[in-house]
């Protein structure tokens, strides 16, 4: 149709486009004839110079562009290389350094979208040319833009108070930042607080964790909100608003000194409710502290068990006993809002539910335990005070540890949970040390990459532990010989000798794998990030941005990103803290200038756009004649939904104008 755009033109001077086709070593050049793409580009409209080069992102590559900007007076630059999500900023900066407004730049993605995904070379050439044509068509209609600076709120929110969250919070607090540490459970500490020893050094978990927990408690820069959950997140990098639901513990946290007098005096004389912290192997009262070193060291009341709530009346001895008047049966849930510049997610993991593999007999046979249950049994602070006893009180003479339960299995989780081999070895060692039992490890492969890990495995071998290579088929109490009587029989094919075996044991330990939390999908949605199919939060780049996410200002620490052991969690937490500090300490964020704006002269005031904006950035400006709509640029996040909706084309989005997109469409189709 008529009225098609002629030559590109913006801001006066005619466009002079430079096109640079990157070989990316052989990543692109192995599939695309970069020279012919450059040759093709030379004939595109307004192209003054087109070159191909080995690595455009290298210093010489960038200098090539900069020299041409000066020598050929380029005012538009196109680089055909990798994804703009990868190197757009690199090249924008190169342009800016040569004096060209960085937004006169456009990238054509001929690596992720062409060379890596295309089979035939000639097809790859064609597609690369089409994408280059699109970029050239489009860039001619770019205009100079400025990034907008917004101040960053100096506080940081850490979500999840396991070892990762604790370490991240302390790191930032020590750097002088105010940190809000939000923990869903009544206490911080996470899974690590449940462990007895840590591999491979066998240092006591509590000994290294509890000092950090009390540091959190006492740190002037940390506000610890346990028994609290994030319910809503608004805003963007530098300026988030986080709403936190503070669940009622029916105990005034500030008043409670953790003396446990109330627990003592509870009308329930005996602890009779399952103790979650002890994996339900022990009992507690309706008013309780999860474990002695709980942080904050404050009790809470379970309203599903406390008579005051279930029956409506109780002598309330606990309240009577409390000298600090900390018991408050009328406490209500409340929502608090905090502002922060950065968020670290360290929400951890859950362990695989062993009941999902019924043939392993968990919950069917009393003496089948999960590894986490065994952790509590070997723990001196656990329900048996560290004595490894079966449910009938006897000490096992033989123990079978089944590896890879819920890991490396197409029926459950295909991935390796990374920590199970090592913690199984640790448990094997502890069991042998404490009971002298015969310990059998049933493994698929021993995975011990890590400092001192393989040596630990060697040590276990020397200690006389048995290792049987094979995935366990079944755990059964069906005895086929007198020595199997009264025992649990582990059926397995020993793949090293190629025979099926039956190993009778007193105790079976299932080394359960790690899984993402059930609500991982809701959580990541709330924070605007993505997660894998398994629910692990997705990092921005698996290699180069391992603790960043798709949402600027939201960082990942620990096992919420994928299974990892304590040293890795702590290292990652440190990295996340450093990234968050880098953002917060910079003091400002630069916003991509892709905001939308309404041309007041062209707006008719129809208000179609007003309901489009999810951020309420569009308002009717009644001060203007004719009541036109106006966009508050500070609130606009640049989605462009209002632009597509505007019936008279009065709204335009920087970097994604109608004209630029129409040109891109034409360009992408101009080469067959």
């Amino acid at each position, binding site marked *: *149709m008529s009225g098609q755009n002629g030559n590109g033109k913006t801001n006066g001077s005619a466009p002079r486009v430079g096109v640079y086709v990157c070989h990316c070593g052989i990543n692109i050049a192995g599939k695309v004839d970069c020279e012919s793409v450059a040759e093709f580009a030379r004939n595109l409209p307004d192209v003054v110079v087109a070159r191909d080069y080995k690595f455009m992102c290298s210093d010489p590559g960038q200098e090539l562009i900069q020299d041409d900007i000066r020598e050929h007076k380029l005012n538009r630059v196109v680089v055909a290389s990798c994804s703009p999500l990868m190197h757009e900023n690199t090249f924008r900066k190169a342009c800016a350094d040569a004096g060209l407004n960085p937004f006169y730049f456009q990238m054509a993605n001929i690596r992720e979208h062409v060379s890596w995904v295309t089979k035939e070379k000639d097809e790859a050439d064609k597609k690369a040319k089409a994408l280059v044509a699109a970029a050239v068509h489009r860039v001619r209609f770019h205009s100079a833009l400025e990034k907008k600076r917004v101040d960053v709120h100096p506080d940081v929110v850490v979500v999840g108070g396991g070892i990762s969250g604790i370490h991240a919070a302390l790191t930032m607090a020590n750097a002088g930042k105010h940190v809000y540490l939000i923990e869903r459970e009544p206490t911080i500490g996470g899974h690590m607080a449940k462990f007895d020893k840590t591999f491979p050094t066998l240092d006591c978990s509590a000994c290294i964790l509890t000092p950090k927990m009390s540091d959190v408690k006492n740190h002037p820069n940390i506000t610890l909100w346990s028994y609290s959950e994030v319910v809503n997140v608004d805003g963007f990098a530098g300026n988030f608003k986080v709403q936190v639901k503070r669940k009622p513990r029916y105990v005034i946290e500030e008043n409670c000194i953790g003396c446990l007098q109330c627990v003592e005096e509870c009308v329930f004389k005996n602890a009779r409710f399952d103790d979650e912290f002890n994996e339900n192997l022990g009992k507690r009262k309706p008013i309780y502290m999860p474990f002695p070193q709980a942080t904050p060291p404050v009790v809470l009341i379970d309203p599903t068990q406390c008579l005051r709530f279930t029956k409506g009346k109780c002598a309330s001895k606990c309240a009577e006993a409390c000298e600090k008047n900390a018991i408050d049966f009328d406490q209500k849930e409340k929502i608090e809002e905090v502002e922060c510049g950065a968020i670290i997610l360290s929400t951890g993991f859950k362990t695989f539910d062993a009941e999902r593999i019924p043939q392993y007999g968990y919950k069917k046979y009393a003496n089948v335990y999960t590894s986490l249950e065994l952790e509590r049994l070997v723990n001196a602070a656990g329900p048996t005070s560290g004595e490894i006893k079966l449910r009938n009180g006897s000490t096992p003479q033989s123990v079978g540890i089944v590896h890879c339960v819920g890991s490396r299995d197409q029926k459950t989780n295909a991935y390796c949970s990374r920590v199970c081999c090592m913690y199984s070895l640790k448990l094997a060692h502890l069991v042998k040390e404490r009971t002298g039992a015969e310990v059998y490890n049933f493994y698929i492969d021993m995975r011990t990459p890590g400092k001192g890990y393989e040596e630990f495995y060697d040590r276990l071998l020397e200690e006389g532990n048995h290792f049987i290579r094979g995935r366990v088929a079944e755990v059964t109490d069906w005895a086929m010989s007198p020595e199997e009587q009264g025992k649990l029989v582990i059926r397995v094919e020993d793949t090293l000798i190629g025979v099926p075996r039956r190993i009778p044991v007193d105790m079976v330990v299932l080394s359960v794998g790690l899984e993402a939390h059930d609500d991982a999908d809701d959580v990541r949605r709330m924070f605007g990030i993505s997660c894998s199919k398994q629910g692990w939060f997705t990092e921005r780049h698996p290699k180069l941005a391992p603790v960043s996410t798709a949402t600027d200002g939201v960082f990942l620490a620990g096992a919420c990103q994928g299974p990892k052991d304590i040293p890795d969690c702590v290292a990652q937490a440190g990295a996340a803290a450093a990234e968050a500090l880098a953002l917060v300490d910079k003091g400002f964020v630069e916003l991509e200038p892709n905001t939308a704006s309404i041309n007041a002269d062209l707006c008719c005031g129809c208000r179609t756009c*007003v309901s489009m904006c999810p951020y309420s950035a569009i308002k009717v400006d009644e001060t203007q004649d004719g009541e036109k709509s106006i966009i508050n640029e500070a609130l606009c996040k640049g989605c462009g939904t209002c632009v597509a909706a505007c019936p008279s*084309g009065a709204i335009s989005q920087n970097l994604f104008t*109608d004209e630029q997109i129409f040109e891109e469409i034409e360009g992408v189709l101009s080469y067959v």
Partner: protein
Amino acid sequence: MSKPKVGFNWLASCGGCEEAVVDLEEAILDVVEAVDIVFWPCAMDFKKDDVRSMADGEMDVCFVNGAIRTSEEEEMSRLLRKKTKILIAFGSCSHMGGIPGLGNFYSSESILKSSFLESPSTVNAEGVIPKTETKRSEGILTLPAFQETAKSLDQVVEVDYYVPGCPPPVKLLKDAVQAVLENKLPPKGAVLAPDVAQCTDCPRQDTKPEKLEIKEFKRPFEIEIDPKKCLLAQGLMCLGPVTRSGCDSACMKANMPCTGCLGPTSRVKDFGAKAMAGFASIIDSTDEEEIDRLLDSIVDPEGTFYRYSLPKSYMHAICTTMRNGSGKKGA
């Protein structure tokens, strides 16, 4: 200085545009005073040869209304293009194809068949369909060819300016004549109407809710229309937000929704697509089934969104798929 020479012509047109000229009322006398009307077949007797005999560029301005559907209309368009310095597409049909352009949803063959054979009001026992040549004892009779599609004027010849509307508002015509007389025409290719959409001067604008959200689309006869309230807010498919202003909200003042005759603003390339963008946007639902139900309430979407602009739309290219037979005819 001699008076500018002006021509008017009509092509595939209902004659409404000619009425618009007459609607100048007394002002037409001023026009006649100021210019020489050298060609106006609707009002006076002119022959094709009168135009042929003009020198190239002899006319200063020629207003042409109507779409181009027949070979004769195409020939006249070219001829007038040669003979005038400024060619103005006058009215929706020559601007965008207009109502005759809606015929482009169908093949020319099916249009002739429908008009001459199938229409219930047609009596044509012999089944006569017009032909370009008919042999009679007196000789060969010729008729202009009925072309495959209707076109806007600028799809046939280069057009200098557009005066939109069905019919064009008198004020726009006056302003255009004034601009010619005072030599104050904007850059070539311009539509001589405000480039802001209708709501800007709609008397109902104050009654718009803060957020436009629609739960059901209605047709004018289905409801008692509140004469004061924004028609969109009443669920009517008012195309005002998509359509240029310049008619002083004529339809809205008559308690009817805008149908889009003045065409889109200069920023919009496809009137119907943009209208769909706007209407779909304000549907107040995120539920797939409810969205479908709401969209069901849009009756005759083609006619609604492309009433005046089909030949000039992106959609036009696509609707040939239908004409070529692979589509569902009679939509």
